């Protein structure tokens, strides 16, 4: 052998091969040859290292350096820099978000929390060389078993290890072996299930390709234990490389006498034959797999008799999964105690997962069983890319279920997962973000199962078909009331009555998405709305779908592009009267869903709206349909915030004359009380409130519910319906000692005091506690009122702040100091007045129900932040009980009012509610949408029909050439006034664009709403 000083292991798992690993490996060899290093440095094509997303990858030993994203051109650098000069090629190693490079394999977060038992050799040895397997203790376990253990002892050791079947069902492997051993019969078979069919799972493939001998050794040991002389490995035809490498390994094992007769000089004889699957998912089921090996249609057989009694060709047979077999040699070599030291009480060892979908580090990972789900997704997987929100993870493929963000802390083990309606399954882990429609997910998996159902038993064959028809109908916007119940009932029948695992688990994706995302099904069925913007029949354009108010975004954007500003604004106000308000304060979910972002960046929809509203000289009124009968009906609206005023606006357009009661001296709700004038100038709000008044809406201010009038009183006065848009006006208490001291206030009170009365006491050193919008608004207001310094304390990190990122950025630019991972523990006082706040450093711990990591106290000591004013912005509440004086108004679990999401109706038939009063602190546009829905709900209840004429889609007559390429301009930036001009005044910070900028931005729209006219379909 040559004197090899360095090994380069190039990963040649399926993912890396697809990214060009073979070319990289060839280029490395060529460069080594050129530099005369071919005898010193060896390139080895190894099995899967795991991080497929950054492939091709390679590890250099003994330097222990990990390179990722290698292109063939990089080979020269690696050879010249690293191997000749000893300098790591920094640009090819893992870089932290902070820009630090981490060359070491174990330093990369993806590997840090992993424990590799099954994948111990994957990416470490050359899978084509049995010598390398043997050098890593390969076949020692078999030798030990054959020469020093009885089959019973092997089984006892396996049982003691607690290894459970890795194919999905999780049956104890040792017990299965014991049943087969005890079954009477001379001929027995050991079978390996390599028919890995779940979409998204590829761990068996990686083991078969990267370490085939571990499976052969595991099978041989199992054969000895159960008393078999013949084994079959059933590998799916879609894995030609796995079949090739496994066959190669079999030949080598035979040459070495590790298969065949007299193995290790004992009388034990054993051999394995490969059978290839032929693309039938059901053949992953054990009885179907045996039927298939026998040469028949791969239909399952009823159990009992179980395969341990009557399996392949009627003989006792034991079937285990690839990953299970790969676990066997280390267990017998290192002992059951060692193995059982990993995992949980009931689930021992490790499990390999295939991370896929909306996660940064897709690939193959092996972790101890029981690791919290969130750690796998965030610490190893690196979280969700592109700043999107995590929504759910699908475990176990089409037989499994989804787990929503509320349960990120669940330990990943067999029992915990099945309690949540998911399964461990083969280990597929598909991460889904906010852009995933859960009904569509259910449809996808059901379609798969329906297609793969073998047809032998009617519950599965017919049941999955009928279920699919219902789900497809829902996705097409033709869902009916009762569909969800039908799915649940059918799903249960299919589960209970199907012959095999395929049918018994096929309803799981539907049942679990209904369990956690029933509201999405309801929105599809009742609202004909697909929030994620996925279901084609329900989505005109993703931006419009994402807008809670359903504003025709492509419509007004394209009208701006044609300088038709008045029409654009009128179109906006069809669905949302507060165009000018939303142009300033909306959190623009439309932009988050903009399809342009897949090209460069989202269209700046809010900026366009701002420009559009600037063009309005005299306020235009929307279409109103006079109706004498409606005009006579009395409707009261409590609260003149965005929800109440929106409800009034839409009612007025149907001919009603609603009366609005507002507790404060000025209408606007949070828009005037909480949102500062530098974000929303008061005249802008006043203009749109006046517009609503001109439609025939009366607003009475200084009328507080509970003080000046009651709901029962309104009923007595003859009001037909009441809408409660009373918001969540109370600030939450800090709940720490000393908070009653002078100088402690809460954010809403502080903002309301300043915004309504025009002045509020302000300290020199101000501390704001909280990370929501109210906290940020309070901090920036305090700065403008002359505070010397303003610090925000937040107990989580910036990424978890509920406040809009843009606002947080601006607060920092203006000089607000952000202190994150800090929690207050006590208000320090001096003479009854605040002198500081005692704080504690926090660290992020387990995942909580919000899908975020819970902050927990660190062990560092407490410290004091000196201050003379504390503003607490840690939450908002509503005291609905007090306001509703004895009416049986049902509240939800957070103490807000329970209301129907479609009609706004509460448990009291004539009372409706919407906005923050129902949802808790939410968003302006959400409140506007809730007001509109309640207006339609009230009208429908009073007249018996729906008259929401504004909901009808308007045809878009702007010019658009679908064949032209998208314009290449980048997204236009918002212009802001300089920071030094913002102190001591409340001038609006954002400036509108010029006409040229705005029109150019409008042209960036891809016009997702555009549909090809039918007559052009033939060319």
């Amino acid at each position: 052998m040559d004197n090899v000083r360095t090994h380069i292991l190039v990963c040649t798992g399926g993912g890396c091969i697809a990214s060009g690993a073979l070319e990289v490996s060839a280029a490395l060899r060529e460069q080594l040859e050129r530099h005369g290093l071919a005898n010193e440095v060896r390139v080895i094509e190894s099995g899967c290292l795991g991080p497929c997303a950054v492939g091709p990858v390679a590890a250099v030993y003994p330097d222990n350096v990990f390179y990722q994203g290698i292109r063939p051109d990089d080979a020269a650098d690696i050879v010249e820099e690293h191997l000749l000069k000893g300098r790591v090629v920094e640009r090819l190693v893992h870089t932290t978000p902070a820009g630090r490079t981490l060359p070491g394999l174990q330093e990369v977060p993806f590997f840090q929390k992993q424990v590799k038992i099954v994948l111990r050799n994957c990416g470490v040895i050359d899978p084509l060389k049995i010598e390398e397997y043997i050098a890593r203790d390969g076949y020692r376990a078999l030798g030990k078993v054959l020469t020093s253990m009885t089959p019973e002892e092997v089984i006892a050791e396996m049982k003691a290890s607690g290894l459970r079947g890795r194919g999905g069902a999780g049956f104890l492997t040792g017990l299965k072996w014991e049943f087969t051993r005890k079954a009477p019969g001379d001929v027995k078979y050991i079978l390996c299930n390599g028919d890995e069919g779940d979409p998204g799972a590829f761990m068996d493939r990686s083991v078969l390709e990267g370490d085939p001998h571990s499976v052969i050794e595991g099978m041989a040991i199992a054969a000895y234990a159960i008393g078999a002389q013949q084994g079959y490995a059933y590998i799916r035809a879609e894995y030609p490389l796995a079949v090739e490498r496994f066959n190669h390994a079999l030949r080598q094992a035979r040459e070495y006498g590790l298969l065949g007769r007299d193995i290790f000089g004992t009388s034990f004889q054993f051999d394995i034959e490969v059978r290839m699957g032929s693309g039938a998912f059901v053949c992953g089921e054990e009885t179907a797999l045996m039927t298939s090996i026998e040469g028949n249609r791969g239909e399952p057989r009823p159990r009992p008799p179980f395969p341990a009694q009557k399996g392949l060709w009627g003989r006792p047979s034991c079937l285990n999964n690839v990953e299970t077999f790969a676990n066997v040699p280390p267990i017998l070599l290192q002992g059951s105690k060692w193995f059982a030291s990993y995992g949980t009480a009931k689930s021992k060892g490790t499990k390999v997962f295939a991370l896929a979908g909306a996660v940064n580090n897709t690939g193959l990972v092996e972790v101890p069983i029981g690791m919290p789900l969130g750690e796998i997704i965030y610490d190893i997987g690196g979280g969700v890319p592109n700043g999107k929100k995590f929504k759910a993870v699908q475990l176990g493929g089409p037989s499994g279920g989804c787990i929503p963000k509320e349960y990120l802390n669940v330990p990943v083990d067999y029992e915990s997962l099945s309690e949540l309606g998911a399964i461990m399954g083969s280990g597929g882990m598909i991460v889904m973000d906010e852009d995933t429609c859960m009904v569509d997910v259910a449809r996808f998996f059901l379609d798969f199962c329906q297609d793969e159902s073998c047809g032998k038993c009617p519950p599965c064959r017919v049941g999955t078909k009928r279920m699919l028809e219902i789900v497809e109908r829902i996705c097409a916007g033709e869902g009916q009331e009762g569909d969800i119940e039908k799915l649940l009932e059918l799903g249960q029948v299919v589960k209970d009555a199907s012959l095999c695992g395929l049918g018994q688990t096929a309803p799981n994706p539907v049942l679990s998405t209904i369990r956690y995302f029933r509201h999405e099904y309801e929105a599809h069925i009742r609202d004909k709305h697909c929030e994620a913007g996925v279901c084609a029949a329900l989505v005109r354009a993703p931006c419009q779908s994402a807008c809670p108010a359903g504003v025709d975004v492509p419509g007004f954007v394209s009208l701006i592009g044609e300088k038709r500003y008045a029409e654009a604004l009128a179109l906006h106000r069809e669905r949302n009267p507060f165009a000018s308000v939303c142009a300033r304060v909306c959190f623009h979910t439309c932009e988050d869903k903009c399809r342009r972002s897949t090209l460069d960046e989202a269209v700046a929809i809010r900026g366009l709206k701002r420009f559009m509203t600037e063009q309005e000289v005299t306020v235009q009124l929307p279409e109103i349909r006079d109706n004498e009968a409606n005009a006579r009906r009395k409707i009261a609206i409590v609260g003149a915030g965005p929800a109440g005023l929106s409800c009034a606006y839409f009612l007025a357009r149907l001919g009603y004359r609603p009366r609005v009661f507002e507790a404060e001296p000025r209408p606007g709700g949070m828009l005037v009380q909480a949102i500062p004038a530098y974000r929303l100038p008061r005249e802008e709000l006043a203009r749109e409130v006046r517009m609503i008044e001109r439609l025939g809406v009366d607003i009475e201010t200084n009328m507080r519910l509970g003080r000046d009038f009651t709901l029962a009183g309104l009923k007595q006065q003859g009001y037909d319906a009441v809408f409660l848009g009373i918001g969540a006006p109370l600030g939450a208490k800090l709940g720490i000692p000393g908070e009653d001291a002078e100088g402690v206030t809460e954010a809403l009170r502080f903002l309301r005091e300043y915004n309504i009365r025009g002045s509020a006491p302000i300290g020199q050193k101000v501390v704001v506690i909280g990370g929501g919008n109210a906290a940020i608004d309070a901090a920036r207001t305090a700065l403008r009122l002359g505070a010397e310094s303003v610090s925000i304390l937040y107990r989580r990190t910036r990424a978890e702040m509920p406040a809009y990122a843009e606002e947080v950025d601006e607060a920092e630019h203006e000089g607000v100091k952000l202190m994150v991972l800090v929690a207050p523990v006590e208000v320090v006082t001096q003479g009854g007045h605040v002198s500081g706040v005692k704080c504690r450093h926090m660290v992020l711990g387990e995942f909580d129900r919000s899908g975020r990591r819970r902050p927990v106290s660190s062990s560092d000591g407490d410290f004091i932040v000196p201050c003379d004013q504390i503003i607490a912005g840690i939450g908002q509440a509503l005291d609905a009980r007090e306001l509703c004086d004895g009416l049986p108004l049902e509240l939800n679990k957070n103490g807000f009012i329970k209301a129907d999401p479609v009609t706004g109706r509460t448990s009291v038939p004539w009372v409706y509610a919407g906005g923050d009063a129902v949802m808790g602190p939410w968003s302006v546009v959400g409140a506007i949408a809730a007001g509109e829905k309640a207006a339609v709900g009230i009208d429908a209840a009073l007249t018996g029909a729906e008259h929401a004429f504004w909901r009808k889609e308007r045809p878009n007559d702007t010019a658009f050439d679908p064949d032209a390429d998208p314009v290449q301009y980048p997204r236009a930036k918002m212009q802001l006034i300089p920071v030094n001009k913002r102190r001591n005044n409340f001038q609006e910070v954002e400036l509108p664009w010029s006409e040229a900028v705005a029109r150019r931005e409008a042209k960036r729209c891809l016009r997702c709403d555009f549909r090809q006219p039918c007559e052009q379909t033939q060319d």
Partner: protein
Amino acid sequence: MLEEGKVTCGCGEEVSEEELLARLDAVLEEYRAKPGALIPVLQIAQGLFGYLPEVALKKIALGLNKSYSEVAGVVSFYSFFSTQPRGKHLIRVCLGTACYVRGGKRVLDTLKQKLGVDVGDTTPDRTFTLEVARCFGACGLAPAIMIDDDVHHRVKPNKMDLILDKYREEPAAPDSGNGRGARATARRT
């Protein structure tokens, strides 16, 4: 023993049908005595012919002493087996949301018309097989189609020939349609 490599498509070769049938005879001879031989033999036969023509199925039925209906039953059960010839190039038309609303359907109709085949079928000259798929993640440049491993963006029906011509001259890309993604979209024919 089944040798690796034999199952991959044998269509590049210029071999007469008689020659292929003779090879099949040899395979049958080898497998006749093995238990559960039908499926491995079908896999090898498909590797030889590129698909499973009726004449081969009849020969297999006779050779393994099984009824033709049993053989046909097994063939129709597994999606890997095809009684229709497969094309050199696999065209997949994306009908995901973005592509659908941007004319993916129209692209599909044009392809059907130009190739003279329906979804799942292969052109008589065995150049193209037409299939539909869901989302390749190219939504921003919809409509998209995928030919072998190449994604084509913003496909315009009237320029379809320009795209197809490139493949009419080229040999098949290796591993086309054999990757993992193919499983989820595969349909039993």
